[in-house]
């Protein structure tokens, strides 16, 4: 069964249709890269999955569970949306780390707050917090940031900040991890360290959706590539196939511009 099923998603901003009838599905352990020019709707699609935008039409199901159905208001209650979001992790283009917390606190904050809702929280508070902290340290170590736990975001480079953000997203063990142009705000030198981390996550079979402008990276790391243009999916298929031998004229054009650049 597909881990994620997106059916007929549509989204308008005022009179502009940003997403038109978007459907795709993915399997557990897959990585999908979404490519396309600016304004093609890639980011809006990710934001719809994370409930940061509400689609006007369509359904989103994770593991067969319908999380969102535009036709069914019962799926749109605020309190439930909060829980449903946890199926997805999100890494933003601009990191969005919390500046007043250290790297480790950034990673553990949400877990500590969610733990308060556990029935055994009062009796096992200390153990639970210790577990969350150990897990946070472990994640930062995996990101190569073991020695940066106590640093505040402004003391870290962009690449380090983004790796903290990835650890923060992983901390809640989401089913699907979403990346919204994770390297677009970084210097070329810092891009590599972030891509390396994402690559290692792909090798560990983390289910991921990556919006990116790094074509070579998409080809090598993703299983599937989706090319979007003007709010529709123009082409979708095996990563190598789409990027090296695109079928659609629009895809060819887009990729050609990249090889020129």
């Amino acid at each position, binding site marked *: 069964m597909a881990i994620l099923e997106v059916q007929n998603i549509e989204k308008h901003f005022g009179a502009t249709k940003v997403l038109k009838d978007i459907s795709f599905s993915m399997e557990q352990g897959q990585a999908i890269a979404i490519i396309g020019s600016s304004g093609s709707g890639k980011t809006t699609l990710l934001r719809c999955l994370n409930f940061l935008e509400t689609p006007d039409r369509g359904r989103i199901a994770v593991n067969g569970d319908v999380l969102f159905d535009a036709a069914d208001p019962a799926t749109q209650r605020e309190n439930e949306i909060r829980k449903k979001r946890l199926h997805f992790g999100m890494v933003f283009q601009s990191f969005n780390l919390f500046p*007043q917390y250290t790297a480790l606190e950034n990673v553990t904050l949400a877990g500590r707050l969610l733990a308060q809702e556990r029935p055994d929280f009062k009796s096992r508070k200390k153990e639970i917090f210790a577990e969350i902290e150990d897990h946070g340290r472990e994640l930062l170590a995996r990101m190569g940031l073991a020695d940066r736990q106590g640093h505040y975001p402004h003391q870290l480079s962009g690449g380090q900040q983004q790796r903290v953000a990835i650890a923060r997203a992983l901390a*809640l063990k989401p089913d699907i991890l979403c990346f919204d142009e994770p390297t677009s705000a970084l210097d070329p030198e810092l891009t590599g360290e972030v891509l390396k981390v994402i690559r290692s996550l792909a090798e560990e079979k983390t289910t991921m959706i990556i919006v990116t402008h790094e074509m070579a990276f998409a080809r090598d790391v993703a299983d599937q590539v989706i090319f979007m243009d003007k709010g529709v999916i123009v082409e979708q298929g095996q990563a190598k196939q789409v990027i090296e031998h695109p079928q659609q004229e629009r895809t060819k054009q887009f990729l050609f511009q990249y090889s020129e650049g």
Partner: protein
Amino acid sequence: MFWTVTRTILEGCGQAGKLFFFTLLFALPLGLVIAFGSMSKWRPFRVTGRFQPLCRLGTRFPKLAAWRPVSMLTDVFVWIIRGTPLMLQLIIIFYTPGKLLPQNPWNNFSDGRMFACIVAFVINYACYFSVIYRGGIEGVPAGQREAGEVLGMTRSQIFFKVTLLQMVKRVVPPMSNEIITLVKDTSLARIIAITEIIKAGESFSKSAGIVWPLYYTAVFYLAFVGVLTILFRYIERRLSYFK
């Protein structure tokens, strides 16, 4: 003479300090409430709302659908308070109830003048604070809230754990301005016959025919503001660990 004058002015300082302290105590939180009112997005005639009859009106009159009554009422209130002199507000709040009722209700309190004065100051300063707070909250990038949302935080968790401290850091400089102004605005209390610093100093020109006590009051204001300046600098330094 010097000591008599100093003691009298210090008594005035006591009154001014009381006014200053209680104004801050109530206006700081009230300002936040007003700020939230002003930012309220509640639109009862919103087209996709849950309450159907109102929505139908919204469909017919698109302008009505966008109407945010709470936000509008708060903005009008803030406009009135910021648009009229605090001195006038003091007079209205202290004297008007007495004109409308058989006796002035403020006199039911042991220190009715001071009480009325604090009420007027709290309302006035809460409005100014609300605008500063709003700027501080809106200045926190939307990505901060979104990051919290995506991590499954509730709206109040996002406000208290993510937004609040960043807002506080942003508002300290403008708030310090406003609070320093408050120190000097306490001198307006004399309009309803409260013996604050200036009135205390000036009293000697009538009773003893000397003017220097009036000028001497400046020293007390300067000392008051000096302490505050140091305090604000300390707070700013405490919050400088993040950017």
